[in-house]
């Protein structure tokens, strides 16, 4: 299966937020840990609602958590 075009900085942001665990983030945004794992691996593009919930959990705007395509472009 090809990787999704929507990338994210969730792993880095978790680390910068007092080394938040995947389970803690999952509980905050109302999904299972498996979904956070899939997001971090780039195996799943979240719904817009979940993307906003994750951004709010980090207190950042959407575009600072998620990006489309190769971020270097």
């Amino acid at each position, binding site marked *: *299966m090809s*990787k*999704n075009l929507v990338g994210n900085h969730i792993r880095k942001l978790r680390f910068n937020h007092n080394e938040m665990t995947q389970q803690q983030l999952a509980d905050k945004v*109302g*999904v*299972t*840990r*498996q*979904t956070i*794992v*899939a997001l971090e*691996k*780039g*195996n*799943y*593009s*979240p*719904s817009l609602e*979940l993307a906003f919930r994750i951004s709010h959990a980090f207190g950042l705007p959407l575009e600072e958590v998620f990006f489309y395509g190769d971020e270097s472009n």
Partner: protein
Amino acid sequence: MTYQEKKSITTLISAVLIFASYCLYMYVQYPEEGLELEESFRYWGSFVLVLTLVSIVAHIIISIIFNIIFRITTGEKEPTFADELDKLIELRAHRNSFFLFILGFLLAMGSLVTDQPLSVMFVILIVSGFLSDVTGSITKLYHYRRGV
């Protein structure tokens, strides 16, 4: 390996084991000289009904045992809800499952058109039901491992 992946594998293995053991049990009971038309309907009707009941009960028991073993071995609790990823994977599993069953159903109807014995039609229907169940589990396992 995550809870969902382990659960998919367990479901897959239990589906194969339940189906194989039930078929073996019923195969022994099938008379060698064959069945009259009316008896044949009753035999296949009870085959499907009992298989459905046995599968449901066995899956519930296996699911409970699986959750107990999962809690003991990992020290974690199983997820109590299905989030958007779970629902998406569930939908894809159902789509593939239904597609396979419809193929089997059409094949079974084809067997009637080509004057095959009644038992062939029932066997095709039952096997396609089993294969659609297996396909659902494999689809879930695939998407939990490789993503959506």
